[in-house]
């Protein structure tokens, strides 16, 4: 096997070696069992005391969601104004301007919802203060919000019949102190010792070998890059994200960043099985998600390694694969692997430019975000998967003529309705959003706006359509990567994706938590011979089939107009 493929294989194996024990550890942390990090308890108690929180106060699912929404609203308002007035605040060594209202609206929503769509460029659009006190702060807290919400669901399924589901603040604080912060310190130091800047110094200047005077953007980036991956956020320090040689200096750091973004999503699945004392169910879910990963990864790698057919016709050697938008130190194989993991989980950081990947690669990237639950984002991946599970339970129940049950609780009309609505939400937001964008582009192309819609697209034809479809898909999935050729810093895209982002985040969190809360308080029915077992391979395959059928039905037409049409047009 060549060294590029070997690098991917090693990355995936190391991910599992770290993530599986981490999952078992997380199950213990949130169940309140003894773990070696218990020496942090006095520190956490200090945090609770200063915040006026009693961590032993039990909440039901509605109180959990109220607490979650309250603190998220506080961050929205705080961040909006800090971004707006960043030019008047300290720690702005490069003298960058304040954001426009629509850009600030988009940016703050995007970071609160763990998406990190960036319509600004890191070097020129934000100050060191906003990078850390707004964006990096939200990297931590939005990831902790996702994890804490998932733990509420875990709690609901752990015991036979429950209404009190623990304390939201406790889950939130522990996600940070026991998981995100310690791992971030380690990753940030690996980056800093590999050449990523970590100090607060502003732009530097040098005279190059050929005599050009060049300015270099710098800043305390290592700290932010660590948590942007660990928390599946993806919003980077520099404009080019992890393709930037200071943000991702070597193959080693590339491996570290690829591993960092996948370990928590995998660990959460393992933790689910251990936490609810149904390890087998956890492993089956892990198996389905891993199968999904490979179904997307293998064709992506193959499409990138074969290179651009139009460039091949010019007679150029593409011995390693397609290179437009990629960095030599990573190569096409590691770039393809990255593009798959960053889209199946909701990171959205990039180490190559997705706009320049091959048409079919773009197809797999978008499909990965549409499904959004093969591992999925920090915490929310499990929640998204739960929706598919409920649908699968319901359909299987209908097929064999039994009352659908999940983990000893009857699944009835209300739960199925919630699941169905959440399933329909994604296609609605993506399709309606893209349709609206296309309408404005074609019918109001020369509208008298600051940025004319006709100049949005960086590429003509089918690929231009893909740029708009990708942007809406990425917003709905809270992913944050983009076909960055799209001119997206203007009022239409800032506002429209702002709304897609916020709906695509909170409804898919509240829905699964509500389902779990409702199921958890129902009477427990012991499993019998007549029970439809959900922890079997058969049911795992059933769930995978449901996922594939639902998404194919929802998105095939749109994907056919974009990446598929481009692919076939290049064949001729």
């Amino acid at each position: 096997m060549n060294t590029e493929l070997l690098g991917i294989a090693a990355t995936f194996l190391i991910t599992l070696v770290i993530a599986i024990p981490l999952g078992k550890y997380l199950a213990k942390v949130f169940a309140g069992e003894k773990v070696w990090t218990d020496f942090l308890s006095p520190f956490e108690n200090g945090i609770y005391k200063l915040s006026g929180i009693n961590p032993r106060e039990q909440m039901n699912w509605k109180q959990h969601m109220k607490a979650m929404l309250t603190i998220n609203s506080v961050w929205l308002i705080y961040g909006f104004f800090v971004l707006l007035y960043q030019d008047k605040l300290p720690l702005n060594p490069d003298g960058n301007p304040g954001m426009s209202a629509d850009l600030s609206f988009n940016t703050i929503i995007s970071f609160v919802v763990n998406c990190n769509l960036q319509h600004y460029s890191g070097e020129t659009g934000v100050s060191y203060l906003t990078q850390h006190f707004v964006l990096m702060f939200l990297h931590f807290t939005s990831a902790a919000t996702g994890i804490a919400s998932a733990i509420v669901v875990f709690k609901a399924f752990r015991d036979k019949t429950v209404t009190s589901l623990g304390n939201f603040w406790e889950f939130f604080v522990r996600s940070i102190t026991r998981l995100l912060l310690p791992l971030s310190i380690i990753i940030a130091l690996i980056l800093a010792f590999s050449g990523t800047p970590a100090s607060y110094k502003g732009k530097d200047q040098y005279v190059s070998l050929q005599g050009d005077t060049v300015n270099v953007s710098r800043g305390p980036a290592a700290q932010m890059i660590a948590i942007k991956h660990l928390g599946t956020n993806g919003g980077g320090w520099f404009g080019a994200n992890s393709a930037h040689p200071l943000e991702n200096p070597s193959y080693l750091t590339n491996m570290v960043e690829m591993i960092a973004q996948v370990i928590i999503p995998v660990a959460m699945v393992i933790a689910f099985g251990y936490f609810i004392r149904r390890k087998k169910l956890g492993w089956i879910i892990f198996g389905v998600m891993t199968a999904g990963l490979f179904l997307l990864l293998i064709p992506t790698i193959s499409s990138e390694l074969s290179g651009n057919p139009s460039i091949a016709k010019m007679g150029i050697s593409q011995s390693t694969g397609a290179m437009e938008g990629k960095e030599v130190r990573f190569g096409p194989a590691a770039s393809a692997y990255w593009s798959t993991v960053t889209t199946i989980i909701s990171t959205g950081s990039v180490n190559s430019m997705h706009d320049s990947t091959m048409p079919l690669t773009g197809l797999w990237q978008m499909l990965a975000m549409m499904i959004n639950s093969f591992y999925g984002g920090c915490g929310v991946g499990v929640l998204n998967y739960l929706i598919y599970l409920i649908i699968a339970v319901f359909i299987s129940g209908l097929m064999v003529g039994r009352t659908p049950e999940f983990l000893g609780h009857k699944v009835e009309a209300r739960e199925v309705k919630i699941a169905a609505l959440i399933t329909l939400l994604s296609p609605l937001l993506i399709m309606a959003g893209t349709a609206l964008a296309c309408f404005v582009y074609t019918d109001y192309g020369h509208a008298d706006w600051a940025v004319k819609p006709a100049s949005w697209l960086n590429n003509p034809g089918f690929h231009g359509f893909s740029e708009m479809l990708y942007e809406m898909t990425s917003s709905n999935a809270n992913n944050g990567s983009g076909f960055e050729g799209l001119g997206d810093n203007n009022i239409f895209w800032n506002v429209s994706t702002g709304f897609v982002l916020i709906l695509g985040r909170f409804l898919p969190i509240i829905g699964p938590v509500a389902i779990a809360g409702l199921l958890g308080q129902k009477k427990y029915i012991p499993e019998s011979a007549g029970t439809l077992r959900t922890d079997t391979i058969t049911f795992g395959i059933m769930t995978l089939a449901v996922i594939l059928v639902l998404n194919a039905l929802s998105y095939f037409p749109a994907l056919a107009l974009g990446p598929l049409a481009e692919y076939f047009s290049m064949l001729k």
Partner: protein
Amino acid sequence: MKKYFFQSLRLTLIMLVLLCVIYPLVVAFIARFSEGKGDGAAILENGKKIGYANIGQSFTRPEYFWGRPSSVGYNAAGSAGSNKGPSNADYLKEVNNRIDSLLKYNPGLKKNEIPADMVTASGSGLDPDISVAGARIQISRVAKARGISAEQLEELVDQATTPPFLNLFGPSRVNVLKLNRSLDNLSR
């Protein structure tokens, strides 16, 4: 609701101190013991800063090895890829022009020897590396411009080549700045 609001407010303030003051300062402090003191790894020559090891520079003269095409002209105040789609006709024309100019400035070069990285823009616009093949195809041009033997240049390219990580993972690559510095040192 009111209770949650004040709890949220206080928790947010505490987390701001922990995550945005203490955490980054601790990392910045430890990073002072790294090679570049946490400022990024700058290269000094005779006390003058001539660049960063990880950031590519623009090389256009025939006596230097050239890096990859860049959509920001190697201006490290920003960073970006071209974001050109694979089927974009204008883009493909641009690639064709790059091929022609490589053929023009490197006499004796055949089309099928040109590796893809030399005619496509990098993701960051600051890629410090080219492929080994990308360096090899320039040897005869640089040899002629500098009056150095091709064998000597091949040796320099070998020295500037970084093997795969641990010799196992990822591609080999040539750091263009490192290679060109060793060229300059040779001529001195």
